[in-house]
């Protein structure tokens, strides 16, 4: 772990510069540029609002914000996991020519996607003002929960990146798994009121970390309540363990990645 912080310090500028460049190119290369960062979640929000509101007739207070919070977190997690599976082989030109700690690549991607999530949450803020959501001190819980979200995502991505080097069909597997988790996470419906069976509710809401994070983010941001239950805290510690495990695995095997890719 000491090596990790040393490397992090050493490559900090690289990570920043690379994320910035990547964001910039993404913006330059698309027709609508930076507006996509707002348009994309907005469009998805409308779709889910339609499905949930018109088809399922769900009645959730502040529904657009409700969906938007879920989407912001979900998109971040989803994009990170999908990207990390192929991260090493997509960067083969760099990886085969210079040594760099492989988590640096991951951090660059994190930078890009965290920025997108940040923009997304600014929109949440705008919506909150627009809908006159009552604002309380509970809103400060937002930060520790986000730290947990980020740590969890990083830990999972580390492990996905590692396994992705060796297993060809991981992309297919992750696609299925992610789709499943998406529906189990309640991005566009309220798990806590829809699921009545207590066992299922614990399973879905507490043991599925993403559902838990999103549920509690909604609680603190729009329902003026403190986080419910201890599970976010428990997931915080599990996430730290995941990160340590991920970083150690990558350090141990990173120099064999290039050999496998030939």
């Amino acid at each position, binding site marked *: 772990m000491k090596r990790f912080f040393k490397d992090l310090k050493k490559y900090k500028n690289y990570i920043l*510069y690379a994320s910035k460049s990547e964001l910039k190119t993404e913006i330059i*290369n698309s027709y609508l540029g930076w507006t996509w960062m707002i348009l994309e979640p907005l469009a998805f929000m409308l779709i889910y609002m339609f499905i949930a509101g018109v088809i399922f007739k769900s009645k959730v207070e502040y529904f657009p914000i409700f969906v938007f919070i879920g989407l912001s977190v979900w998109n971040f997690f989803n994009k990170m996991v999908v990207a990390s599976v192929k991260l090493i082989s997509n960067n083969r030109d760099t990886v085969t020519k210079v040594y760099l700690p492989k988590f640096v690549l991951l951090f660059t991607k994190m930078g890009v996607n965290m920025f997108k999530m940040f923009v997304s949450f600014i929109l949440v803020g705008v919506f909150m003002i627009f809908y006159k959501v009552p604002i309380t001190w509970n809103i400060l819980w937002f930060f520790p929960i986000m730290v947990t979200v980020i740590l969890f995502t990083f830990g999972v991505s580390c492990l996905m990146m590692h396994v992705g080097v*060796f297993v060809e069909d991981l992309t297919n597997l992750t696609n299925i798994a992610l789709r499943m988790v998406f529906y189990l996470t309640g991005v566009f419906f309220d798990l806590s009121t829809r699921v009545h069976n207590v066992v299922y509710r614990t399973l879905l809401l507490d043991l599925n970390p993403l559902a838990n994070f999103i549920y509690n983010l909604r609680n603190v941001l729009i329902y003026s309540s403190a986080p419910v239950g201890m599970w976010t805290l428990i997931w915080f510690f599990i996430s730290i363990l995941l990160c340590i495990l991920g970083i150690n695995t990558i350090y141990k095997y990173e*120099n064999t990645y290039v050999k496998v890719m030939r």
Partner: protein
Amino acid sequence: MKNNNKEIAISVNDLHVYYRDMNRFSLKKNGIKGKGSGKIFKAIKGVTFEIPKGQILGICGKNGSGKSTLLRAIAGIFSPDKGSINLHKNTISLLSIGVGFQKQLTGYENIYLSGMLLGYTKEEIDKKVDEIIEFSELGEFVYRPVRSYSSGMYSKLAFSITAILETDIMLIDEVLSVGDVHFKEKSYNKMKELINDSNRTVVIVSHSTKTIVELCDKVIWLHEGLIRDEGDPEKIMTKYEEFMRQEQ
């Protein structure tokens, strides 16, 4: 040798590098375990040498003899399976055809990224960036994405970055044939200039007898992952050429 009292820049000790036949596999055949049981291909099987600071070492050998693998192992891209490599805290850069660029980014951004990977700070690169652009002869192209470059421009940029952002140790993989005749000459001269700096240690992998005899102090002849011979460039290269002729 007269270099005995000099500092050592690179020591390679009983180096082994293997490629396990663990090509990416699908779940059909194996479990989740990372290591396949496949055959082992031994690219380097026990190589030991030391390079004193300031020496220019040539490495020759036929295709597949492990030259590039050795170079990459020294650069830290491959991990040794056995043995060790000690760089004595020198900075190192590997110069090979087409250094890794992020293709969607511009040449300008890639200069910064490559420089940072070589351990330079942004300020240090700021000072050198104009020199790099000038040497690379890319002109306005430097502000376009690298994917729009021709292969010649690509290598020119790669060469310029490594040549101008100097490191203590330079590893050169067949790079002396970059670009057109004019740039080739220019890069060859730049190379000589870099090499003549007595603080710089250089390792050159090349098939060209001319390059090695003209530039190097010493040659190592790799053959099937082992050192077959080493010593004075002219003597070794004569033997090597004779050997290659017989192979045919």
